[in-house]
């Protein structure tokens, strides 16, 4: 190429004083000439370039991450798992907010009744509801991906159920601080685990929503029966009952692993 941009032309161009036709010529030229591109670039404030670069780095790092993913990655969760979990509907903000509202109501009811019973009955049901929300086709942005996922239905289900359980526990634990009687005791935790696994295993033989209804009915019915029949109150949350829930949860988990194949085809 015999023609190159000289300093006078460059100064006119960079100042915006060059008229159309010479500018056309110059722009067409430097699109194909790396040396002249460098010359034009030298006329641009390098500090400004650096500032744009810094902002670009931020957006390159963050643009592909949802807020939840960023949080999970910060906790050391692998990126692909964080993506899956962040897209689990029941871990979403709207779900957490509605659960928080329900629990707040339970806390107030517990105060009104002079005992923590409403809260203790509701808290273990939160992850059950979460499981339903997680597996409702209409609510799930990952439904099709879940079917086609190479992760496999069973592992996917376990990861998401764990996420649901964790999110529920955090919300319920915060809510429990509002009730003086139970504050730091986690007597609702093992029933929650038991009911979640029960719902999952029931969902292998019926719709997830029906499974949740059955599990909830068993829970509420069981608590009421125990309160009526037993001599002392809150027996369902006593030490013996805790042990029973733990054993049942382990047994059901074993059963769930035995039925893992039914999660591979949805």
């Amino acid at each position, binding site marked *: 190429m015999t023609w190159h941009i000289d300093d006078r032309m460059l100064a006119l161009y960079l100042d915006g004083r060059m*008229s159309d036709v*010479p500018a*056309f010529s110059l722009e067409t030229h430097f*699109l194909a000439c790396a040396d002249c*591109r460098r010359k034009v670039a030298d006329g641009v404030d390098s500090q400004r370039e650096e500032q744009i670069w810094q902002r*670009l780095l931020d957006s390159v790092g963050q643009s592909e991450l949802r807020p939840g993913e960023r949080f999970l990655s910060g906790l050391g969760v692998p990126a692909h798992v964080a993506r899956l979990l962040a897209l689990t509907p029941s871990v979403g903000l709207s779900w957490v907010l509605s659960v928080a509202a329900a629990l707040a109501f339970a806390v107030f009811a517990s105060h009104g009744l002079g005992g923590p019973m409403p809260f203790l009955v509701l808290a273990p049901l939160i992850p059950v509801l979460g499981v339903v929300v997680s597996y409702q086709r209409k609510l799930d942005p990952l439904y099709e991906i879940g079917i086609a996922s190479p992760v496999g239905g069973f592992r996917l289900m376990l990861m998401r159920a764990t996420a649901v359980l964790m999110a529920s526990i955090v919300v319920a634990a915060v809510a429990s601080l509002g009730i003086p009687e139970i504050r730091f005791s986690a007597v609702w935790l093992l029933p929650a685990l038991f009911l979640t696994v029960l719902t999952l295993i029931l969902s292998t033989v019926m719709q997830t929503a029906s499974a949740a209804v059955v599990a909830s009915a068993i829970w509420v019915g069981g608590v009421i029966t125990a309160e009526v029949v037993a001599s002392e109150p809150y027996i369902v949350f006593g030490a013996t009952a805790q042990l029973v829930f733990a054993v049942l949860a382990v047994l059901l988990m074993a059963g769930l692993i035995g039925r893992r194949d039914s999660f591979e085809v949805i």
Partner: protein
Amino acid sequence: MRNASDQQLVSSIAEGDAGALRVLYERHAGWLIARLTRRCADQAIVDEVVQDTFLAVWRGARRYRGEGEVAAWIWGIGIRRLLDRFRRRRVPEWRSGGAGSEPSAEELVLLGIEHGDLAGALDRLSPELRSVISATVLDGLTTSEAAALLGIPSGTVKSRLVRARRELREALT
């Protein structure tokens, strides 16, 4: 990596190499800023467009077909990002030409060396015809993109292009 060609850099970027993005940025951000500045006076907008452009390069490096100047590909992204900004604002701040001035004698001499009559012919086009040539031929926009940029119907862009071509042909024969 400093010695890699632009094409090699883009394929490294497609594999997620942020270092290659840095080198490509150093090579191309400067002229992109200068060229966008000629079309948009607002420095903040130009900065955002440059950032958007390289973000698009980062995400879309796989879509580069491996032929033609990488600079031209980057410009194609950049001018469209700028266009998006204009569309969103609805107040076109597009500017064309150096404050509407006639080319200086100096410029004409400089250009005369390479372009002969073409420079004069282009210059004698009315500003409307010239801006259409600029948007389509030079910036590589489609008719409808040029229409959005200049704030005129695409039918008008087409008819102005036909007129511009005819006038240029007449001036050169």
